């Protein structure tokens, strides 16, 4: 598990990534990934892996998925040009509109794909975790659509700050279980979902919400989210007349980012930037910038980078955005950082909120706070790279954030 990778092996690992060799048969992206779970879950993960092997490329599954994506989710989502931001920032700004996907974020791409898989695997019920509530809502919607009962675990802190999404899940028939253990945010919700799954690993399907967790989840979620990047590529060629010079996405667990990035990994002229939550500042516990300042370790099933103390205890994190407030990150991102293909940076709470407001007033699009981190980073890049062509993943809409925005940007204005 050594992480000191020299330039030659980095180049070799990247070449293998581009050839599609990761995750390898051990579920790894170079050193990262794997399957660190209680023995009870191993058979379930094996079944999932076999199911993916059997179904993911199956024409009938693909047809079902395409039908749901096109006629229920609303894909392809548009690529919007941002005239005002472009003029203001001195670059060409293009936005991939996952906010227009059904339920309001990219999460639905993976949720409906996994729910279709769960059905084929004969699952009787589904569990899911959620941070911002977007994956919970997406899971509730996908499971309602397919007639699967679903229980969603959500940290008590997140229930508070993403209240509108709790009601949405319940209206779609989901059971929402508040998690009051641990940090009461996304990490604790994943722990609880895993505990639930451990209790009934054969009858229950765990519908994981990001590109995290034990193999094969990071692979499965990437495959289901890569439609974002595939569509973007085609749309950029058609609408912008060429590939972007730089691609930006926010990174919580990393699902929207890996979905957008993956189809561009082989385009070596395309700079790729992941943007994490810088929170209140660089101090431990004040942010959730895992890739920027984390160290290797195992959390919730995978070997990746994490925010941890000297004793291997997971660090409490902070971000104004519930969906980025997570001390781990998908192993493929740890890999892409390590081999130097993707640069990761962080944006603080205040800067993200300012970017949200700028986008809202300039283009009439109210993004999720998560998403706004990517815009803030793209803005700096644009200023440093005049006339460059920039693609930003607009991962979700901000309706869910109204309680937080009422306390911050709208303070005293409502």
């Amino acid at each position: 598990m050594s992480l000191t990778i020299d330039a030659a092996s980095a180049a070799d690992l990247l070449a293998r990534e581009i050839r599609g060799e990761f995750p390898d048969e051990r579920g790894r992206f170079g050193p990262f990934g794997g399957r660190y779970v209680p023995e009870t879950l191993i058979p379930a993960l094996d079944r999932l892996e076999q199911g993916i092997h059997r179904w993911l490329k199956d024409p009938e599954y693909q047809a079902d998925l395409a039908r749901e994506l096109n006629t229920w989710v609303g894909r392809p989502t548009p690529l919007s040009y941002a005239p005002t931001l472009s003029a203001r920032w001195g670059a060409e700004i293009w936005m991939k509109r996952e906010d227009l996907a059904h339920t309001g974020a990219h999460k639905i791409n993976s949720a409906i794909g996994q729910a279709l898989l769960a059905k084929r695997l004969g699952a009787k019920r589904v569990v899911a975790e959620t941070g911002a509530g977007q994956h919970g809502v997406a899971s509730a919607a996908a499971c309602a659509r397919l007639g699967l009962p679903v229980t969603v675990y959500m940290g008590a802190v997140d229930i508070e700050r993403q209240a509108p999404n709790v009601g949405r899940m319940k209206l779609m028939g989901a059971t929402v279980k508040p998690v009051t253990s641990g940090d009461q945010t996304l990490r604790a919700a994943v722990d609880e979902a895993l505990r639930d799954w451990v209790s009934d690993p054969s009858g229950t399907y765990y519908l994981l919400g990001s590109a995290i967790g034990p193999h094969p989840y990071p692979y499965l979620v990437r495959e289901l989210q890569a439609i974002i990047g595939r569509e973007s590529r085609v749309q950029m060629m058609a609408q912008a007349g060429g590939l972007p010079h730089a691609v930006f996405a926010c990174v919580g667990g990393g699902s929207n980012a890996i979905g957008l990035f993956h189809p561009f990994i082989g385009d070596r002229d395309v700079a790729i930037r992941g943007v994490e939550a810088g929170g209140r500042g660089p101090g431990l516990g004040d942010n959730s910038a895992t890739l920027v300042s984390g160290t290797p370790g195992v959390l919730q099933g995978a070997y990746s980078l994490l925010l941890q103390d000297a004793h291997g205890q997971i660090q409490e994190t902070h971000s104004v955005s519930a969906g980025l407030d997570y001390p781990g990150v998908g192993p493929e991102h740890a890999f892409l950082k390590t081999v130097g293909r993707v640069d990761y940076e962080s944006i603080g709470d205040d800067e993200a909120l300012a970017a949200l407001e700028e986008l809202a007033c300039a283009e009439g699009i109210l993004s999720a706070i998560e998403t706004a981190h990517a815009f803030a980073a793209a803005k700096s890049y644009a200023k440093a790279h005049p006339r460059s062509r920039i693609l930003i993943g607009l991962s979700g809409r901000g309706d869910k954030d109204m309680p937080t925005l009422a306390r911050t940007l709208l303070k005293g204005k409502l």
Partner: protein
Amino acid sequence: MNTSKDIGAAIAAATAAKRPAIVAFMTAGFPKRADFIATLNRIGSAADVIEIGVPFTDPMADGMTIQRASEAALHEGVTLTWILSELTAAPVKPAAPLLLMSYLNPLLRFGFERLPAAARAAGVSGFIVPDLPREEAAEFDAALKAEGLALVQMVTPVTPRDRLEALCRPAGGFVYAVTMTGTTGKVVDVPDEVLTYLDAVRAASGAPVCAGFGIRNRAQVERLAPHVDGVIVGSALVEVLERGEDPAAFLRGLHL
């Protein structure tokens, strides 16, 4: 000298006494850090093997009780380093072999290079790592073996037959047969299928088999006794400690 062999010997001694061995779980430094060694010795007076839980922020295989104990211990400042140094420095230690039960990350962070020797120096005979399945365990297993320490393998009622056999073959110390799907701490009343499953584990295993998860009372131990070599008592014992009662008295109540 503590090694993986001690564990086998301790269980064999109980077997010789015609009773299942008692493997007792305690969270290190719970309820109070200052009482760690005293509690350990008290439990040691009535247990055949002791599992010392290293607290972790994300104990995903554990139920409420052990989560609570783990959180309290972290709050007390308990770390793996501290546990090892306390054990190393302890003037009196139980005769029962000691196992460290820990999630992987604190061990990784300590370092696989340093850990086995440090553990051995502290009188630890082996490890139980609930989130380290066999496929990922080679490196750690090798490091432990080099110091003669055991890596206890868990098996579960949902483990397929062929996998069960593969897991039981190289087992170190004993095979930890989880009695149910789920987290620690639930009350289960040991249905017949579980007994059948335990028989299968025993048939597959060269090492002794201890059953754990949800064992709380003498009736359960009696029912399990013909099918296992030992029982593991975790959450129930932690609750005894939580209530400030005598763990040794509780454990002695489980001796058949």
